[in-house]
């Protein structure tokens, strides 16, 4: 009974961390002279209050989930990918190029090719830091950050130059954006008039696939093995470097796909305000938050993405109704991350205590390892 309660407590840690973040948010709202109850009511209403609100929440959750799936893979391989922003951009650019180039091809073919192009674009943008980490020992946190900055400049260059909307090219103002995708190239709407689109189904299906990949295939097993213990993996004959590259490459690929889905499902074009978040709305970072919250499990990440999609969509309503800037939610997301990773420590300590307790009651044989493999499943 007690162990079941403990397990429940462990599973609820992220929820407790979120509640703590919301409590801090309430204090901040009080300082801003905003009634927190009204603010959070507006947030709830904005996220779930109507069919359209809920659809918007799911639209927002879609790229978060795709990025989060990639993060599940890379973090399980002990590779930290914070290049989601750049990978989304490159994926989006390649996918857009496909749709603007092959205008005479059938819709299904273009959409499929564009999704694959996005996947590949992200794979390249994630694979480069992976290769540099595996073979040149370049820290992936730094290289992915640099790759983000480079991707932003490539986007700005492409949208101001080679890929600019021909209409804008004629004008003096020259808004840096591409032409719109023709109607048959857009991802189907699931519930018109809401913006909910087929990308959600792609993302959920891929969540199941990533689950299978991580726990039912050799590739996934090896990525996780390398993440848990690289030197043991090496002695077991796993080519560690190859799986480091694979972890980052796959992680980038999912982010790239998120970029492609954003273009084909929501915006129908690429437009830049000069920054990464102008295209990604920070999904590359928020996807990390969602994945961590989902305990790096693809299926839990579905729920986590919906939750954070709701927070982000609700934040806009909160801004409209009680004039509390939606930036509050960005700050709270940051706190959730800090609380979740800090609470990991509590979980591990409880695990050790339970183990010590079990050992006392039931001493292990003398040659048994004193610590079991970290239970990460």
């Amino acid at each position, binding site marked *: 009974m007690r162990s079941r309660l403990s397990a429940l407590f462990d599973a609820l840690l992220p929820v407790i961390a979120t509640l703590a973040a919301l409590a801090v948010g309430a204090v901040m709202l009080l300082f801003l002279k905003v009634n927190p109850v009204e603010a959070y009511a507006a947030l709830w209403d904005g996220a779930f209050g109507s069919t359209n609100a809920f659809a918007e929440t799911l639209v927002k959750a879609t790229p978060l989930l795709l990025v989060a799936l990639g993060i599940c893979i890379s973090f399980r391989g002990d590779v930290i990918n914070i290049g989601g922003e750049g990978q989304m951009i490159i994926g989006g650019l390649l996918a857009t190029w496909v749709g603007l180039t092959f205008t005479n091809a059938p819709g299904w073919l273009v959409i499929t090719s564009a999704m694959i192009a996005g996947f590949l674009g992200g794979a390249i943008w994630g694979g480069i830091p992976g290769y540099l980490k595996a073979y040149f020992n370049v*820290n992936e946190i*730094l290289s992915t950050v640099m790759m983000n*900055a480079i991707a932003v400049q490539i986007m700005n260059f492409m949208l101001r130059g080679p890929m600019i909307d021909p209409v804008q090219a004629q004008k003096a103002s020259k808004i840096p954006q591409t032409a719109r995708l023709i109607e048959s190239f857009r991802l189907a709407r699931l519930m018109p008039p809401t913006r909910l689109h087929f990308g959600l189904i792609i993302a959920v299906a891929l969540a199941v696939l990533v689950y299978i990949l991580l726990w039912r295939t050799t590739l996934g097993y090896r990525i996780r093995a390398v993440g848990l213990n690289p030197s043991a993996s090496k002695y077991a004959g796993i080519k560690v470097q190859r799986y480091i590259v694979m972890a980052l490459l796959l992680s980038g690929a999912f982010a790239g796909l998120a970029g492609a889905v954003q273009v084909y499902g929501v915006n129908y074009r690429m437009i830049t305000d000069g920054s990464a978040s102008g295209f990604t709305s920070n999904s590359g*970072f928020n996807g990390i938050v969602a994945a961590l919250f989902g305990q790096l499990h693809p299926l839990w990440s579905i729920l986590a993405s919906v939750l954070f999609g709701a927070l982000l969509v609700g934040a806009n309503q909160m801004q409209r109704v009680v004039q509390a800037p939606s930036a509050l939610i960005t*700050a709270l997301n*940051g706190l959730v991350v800090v609380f979740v990773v*800090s609470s990991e420590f509590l979980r591990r300590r409880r695990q050790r205590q339970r183990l010590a307790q079990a050992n006392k009651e039931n001493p292990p044989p003398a040659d048994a390892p004193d610590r079991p493999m970290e239970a990460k499943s």
Partner: protein
Amino acid sequence: MISELFTVTVLIGILSSGIRLATPYLYAAIGETFSQRSGVLNLGVEGQMLLGAFAAFYVAMNTGSLWLGVLAAMIVGVAMGLAMAFATVNLHAEQGISGIGFYLFGLGMSDLLFQKMMGTVRTVDGFQKIAIPFLSKIPGIGEIFFNHNILVYGSYFLVLLAWFVLNKTTLGLKIRAVGENPDAADSLGVSVARVRYFAIIFGGMMSGLAGASLSIALLNVFQQNMTSGLGFIAVALVYFGAWRPGGVLVGALLFSMVNSLQLWIQVLGISIPSELAVMMPYVLTILVLIATVSKVIAPTALTKPFEREE
């Protein structure tokens, strides 16, 4: 057109603004050097800078005192550093990821405060240039090195100070020991936790100051996300500089000089795509990391939480 770049006036301009633009990189990266030397990767520098920049600007605008602004930025940096130290030292939080959390917190919080407390972009009269007597009169050299505001001079002084503290004092020895071999340091009676707290808090304070140098000494405005990645580059510069203040200085100057060149290229209207120019420093950093990283050795305990063996 390219030849316009090579007139004496323009060259002096490029070098002079290069020296000036290195300021925020230096403060943030030297602070980060301390933190990493003690074994803690602080990836929240960008968030600390943003909050520091806002605090400095807001206080300076309302009190009219730039020094109070600097103080406010440093206090904000200390508070952020304290929170980071608690999460990473006491709670053993994964450093890279909690750093991203602190970044998002700083990004959102500075934006929130800006919208609620200021609403529109305003400007302040930042720190004025101080021409150093005699030295600033040397042709060329004087304009490049000896005619800047006080925070610019301060950042170069900090490099010297950091070198001295890290290499010539007991405190520096403790910081390095804790970052290389915390178990040994612990058995010699050095409090690993206390040293790391100090290093992280100092790093936070310097990041706050780096933010202040942007908002009340270099640009004299505050805008949402005004650092746009600068804090992350500061972290990269620590690797680039192989965890040594001198190396960090070289990296920061390389970065700021390329940046300054890029700005002048745009000013003179030379037809190189500006995106390509902006991109250069990042590409360069990756290349330098590839060339150097396998040869230098990071502090052994970097990113590893310390726990005393029972």
